């Protein structure tokens, strides 16, 4: 039996459009796969093979699929263009698989699976402010989410953290904040957010002109002192220690906090039970019950 579900997920072959360094330690890859680009919703993700299919074959057979490394890597959607049938993702080199990914060239064909996981329905978005707090490769999914929330009539404010300027995964640019932090209105922000007129404040652990010095939670604390007439909620995506700190601050102020989790993953369709995170209701799969979880349900380990 075969069924066609326009929302996917699709296990398909994507074509690499381009790949460029994104800061000193990350790469931004653009893939062409119209069915996935059309179906993707924030903050969903997809999985992608680290190596291309054998170029000798026109039709992808099992023989052409690279089996070492075997597993596809989960990556959050960054910029998605349903019109062009393309989407982007940013990854950091963390091991052999991501190192091999950097060798992917325009025209290469790779097996992808997506879109995966739960998502924010624009129709369910309430007005008010959303503070989006991210670090490292947690940032790209927050960009897609910020865009979605903005289109749905919410005011997103993005707070980004990095160790140093060269670790930022998008170019920096000057920005005048619509929602100033105290008296600070002029900040160094990130280009994609400036282009979309989304407030974005960057915290660097190593001091740098124009940037906040410190952690994302330092900026978050300042934003949480402000009054939001239409309410405020928090979304966070990044490494566990940061998300835990953000979730703790949100809980103390009784503010709704949504975490976007990541995990080592096997099948990515809910079958293998490997990508679980601990919640108050037992182990839950990041690929099906996630990646979005209510922060108060997560049992941080």
């Amino acid at each position: 039996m075969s069924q066609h579900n326009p929302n996917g997920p699709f296990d398909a072959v994507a074509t690499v459009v381009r790949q460029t360094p994104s800061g000193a330690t990350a790469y931004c890859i653009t893939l062409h796969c119209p069915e996935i680009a059309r179906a993707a919703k924030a903050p969903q993700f997809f999985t992608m093979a680290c190596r291309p299919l054998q170029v000798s074959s026109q039709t992808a057979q099992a023989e052409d699929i690279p089996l070492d490394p075997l597993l596809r890597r989960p990556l959050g959607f960054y910029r998605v263009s349903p019109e062009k049938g393309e989407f982007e993702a940013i990854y950091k080199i963390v091991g052999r698989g991501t190192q091999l990914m950097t060798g992917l060239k325009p025209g290469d064909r790779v097996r992808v699976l997506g879109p995966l996981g739960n998502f924010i329905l624009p129709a369910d978005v309430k007005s008010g402010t959303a503070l989006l707090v991210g670090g490292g490769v947690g940032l790209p999914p927050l960009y897609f989410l910020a865009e979605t929330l903005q289109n749905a009539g919410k005011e997103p404010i993005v707070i980004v953290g990095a160790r140093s300027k060269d670790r930022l995964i998008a170019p920096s640019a000057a920005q005048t904040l619509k929602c100033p932090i105290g008296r600070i209105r002029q900040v160094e922000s990130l280009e994609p957010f400036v282009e979309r007129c989304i407030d974005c404040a960057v915290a660097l652990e190593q001091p740098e002109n124009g940037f906040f010095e410190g952690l994302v939670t330092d900026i978050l604390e300042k934003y949480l002192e402000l009054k939001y007439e239409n309410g405020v909620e928090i979304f966070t995506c990044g490494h566990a220690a940061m998300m835990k700190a953000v979730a703790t601050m949100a809980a103390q102020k009784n503010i709704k906090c949504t975490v976007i989790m990541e995990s080592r993953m096997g099948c990515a369709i809910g079958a293998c039970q490997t990508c679980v995170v601990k919640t108050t209701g037992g182990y839950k799969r990041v690929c099906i019950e996630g990646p979005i979880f209510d922060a108060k349900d997560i049992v941080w380990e």
Partner: protein
Amino acid sequence: MTPEKNKPAAPSLEITLCGIKMRSPLITASGAFGYAFEAGRVADFDFHSVGAVCLKSVTAQPREGNRPPRVAETPAGMLNSVGLQNPGADYVVKMYLGMLKNFDTKFIASVAGFSVDEFALAAEKMAAHPSISAVEINMSCPNVNGGRHFASDAAEAAKVIRAVKARCKKPVFAKLAPTPDGIREIARACIDAGVNALTVGNTFVGMAIDVKARRPILGNNFGGLSGPAIRPLAVYNVHLVYQVASKAKVPVIGCGGVATAADAAEIMLAGAAAVQVGTALFANLHVSADICAGLKRYLAEQNEKNISAIVGTLKLN
């Protein structure tokens, strides 16, 4: 005269395994394919090339599973330590098995347990459902304390098989631990106890260490190795068990690292009447369709009309 009349008929991949008619010799391996409906959600997933689905192992009682991380990638393979997480046989029967009739293939239940009674109880509950054609006894899970107990002792293995056979009218398969030393003795004990087929075999126990942190990557420290890395080991185990099983006319189901048509042919030549595919599904969900297409080409090249004709036809040097 039409040209088609001179064309030989396309080779057939159909098999009959313990009386179960299957469209192909490919079975999705337990644990890699959930309860089938998960893949049923994937757009354009086609069950046609899947001869049978072996469902994820269930136990009589629900199990929470092991502490994450539960997966660690290794060269051409992966370690998993899921630890038999499942909602229990009653829940699976009530909530999941009803969905199986939507998918046009055969289904094999997989059951695990920590005592003879637990195996028998879970098997009885699952086998009673009309969508279930057979029950695979997972007596070799490497990820739970005592998970391999029943596959490492011939007398214990026989006890489980006899208990399950007494309470389950459908064919019973035993999934053996992949340990060449003694695997034939365990196989023989299962055959004597009335097992209908032998699945050879489960994952190999392994460990991966994060050298910077000086800690195992898996939350449960060790796990089961699967994927192309283990294929030669699986082929050898199938070869060993086939020597015993073929005499008793008990089919062997090969399992371990199969990802391509050549891999499937290899394990069938070694003696497998059917082939399980697990980890390869993670690299390509449509892998069974690709393998079937490749097997048909292989049979045509070999001038064989039927896939069963190659089973155990390995010629040793």
